[in-house]
């Protein structure tokens, strides 16, 4: 009897150990990639990636798949960049001619930390096409509570989208540490990591309209120190002293050369 109880307990333990990780996985979005943001210039948020001006040149570029590997998943190009004030994210999506839905959207569902638990994703920025054929779109800022999307009282950030041939481009600008509403928005901070669920959908109903999504971790880099280190200051001061000494000695040497010329002339006379 004791042996049987022991076996039952072991079986329950094994079953639990097998199922529990799956439950955790179901509760989150599932991470695919960790991206280090890069410092760059401020891009124009207009739905165009201007290659001539090189506005996104310094961005971190990655290729990811929304909702698994192709053919099931949707491959996208993700560009991540930041400056002193904002985080810039661009998503490029290439679909065959006629496959872009008229009410296509790309959303960024943001976790308040690097946690991928569903309840930590409390903020959503969505660029929603109302008519993709004429490039009509809206930028929405939502607050998420128990999977219910509620529109923010204050719109935080900015977004634009454009369809060019078979490629649709979405550009997001999200303030860092300068959020208008701390309750309805995730306050991004330098040096921290945040989970971003990138979503694609074709019906403007959230979250039911979401068709494919993938979570990435974005590492916001710290602001570069504006104050030079003491060693650098000392070295620079020393450098200036050395150059000043050389300059003074050089001037004195030129004076000596001119004096020498006068002396030679006097000796000749």
């Amino acid at each position, binding site marked *: 009897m004791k042996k049987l109880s022991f076996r039952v307990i072991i079986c329950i333990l094994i079953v639990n150990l097998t199922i529990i990780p799956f439950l955790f996985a179901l509760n989150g979005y599932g991470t695919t990639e960790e991206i280090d943001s890069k410092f760059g210039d401020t891009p124009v948020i207009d739905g165009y990636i201007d290659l001539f001006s090189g506005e996104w040149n310094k961005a971190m570029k990655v290729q990811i798949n929304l909702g698994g590997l192709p053919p099931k998943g949707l491959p996208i190009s993700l560009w991540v960049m930041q400056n002193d004030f904002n985080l810039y994210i661009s998503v490029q999506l290439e679909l065959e001619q006629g496959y872009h839905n008229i009410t296509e959207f790309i959303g960024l569902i943001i976790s308040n930390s690097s946690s991928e638990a569903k309840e930590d994703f409390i903020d959503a920025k969505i660029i929603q096409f109302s008519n993709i054929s004429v490039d009509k779109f809206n930028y929405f800022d939502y607050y998420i509570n128990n999977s219910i999307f509620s529109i923010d009282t204050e719109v935080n950030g900015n977004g634009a989208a454009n369809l060019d041939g078979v490629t649709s481009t979405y550009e997001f600008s999200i303030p860092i540490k300068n959020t208008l509403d701390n309750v309805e928005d995730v306050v991004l901070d330098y040096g921290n990591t945040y989970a971003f669920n990138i979503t694609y959908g074709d019906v403007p109903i959230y979250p039911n309209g979401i068709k494919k999504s993938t979570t990435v971790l974005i590492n916001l880099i710290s602001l570069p120190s504006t104050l030079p280190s003491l060693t650098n200051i000392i*070295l*620079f001061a*020393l*450098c*200036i002293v*050395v*150059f000043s*000494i*050389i*300059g003074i*000695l*050089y001037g004195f*040497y*030129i004076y*000596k*050369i001119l004096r*020498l*010329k006068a002396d*030679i002339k006097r000796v000749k006379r």
Partner: protein
Amino acid sequence: MSKIPKQQEKELKSKEKYRSNEKFAYRSVIISAILGGIFFIISLFFNTGFITIFMNKDIFWNFIDITIKVLAIMFFFLFMITSVGNYKELIGKPLNWKELLFLFLLSIGQTILNIWVFTFTLFGLAIIIIYLYIVQEF
């Protein structure tokens, strides 16, 4: 028959040769000092970080930046050592090792902001000094 005695003629020729050498040495002092000054100004602009157009772009432009800095210092040293050497010769004193060391330190002092410039300049100056030593020996 020449009215000037042979001994006097020889002395005159010797004096003229000395004057010609003196003129050449003085011109060398001036030209070398000016060139040294030009390279000093180039070095001043690049080594103090006043001109940063080539810095922190990529490895190629960094290499160009370091090369300009190193060459400016090396040419400064080379022209100044020539100028000072000839100057000392004109005043009848030889260039001693203290002056050579002083110029060497002034040249190497220009490199303190960049470890790579320091390393390559040290190497370059050592080659120049070895070369000058060998030339003097033979």
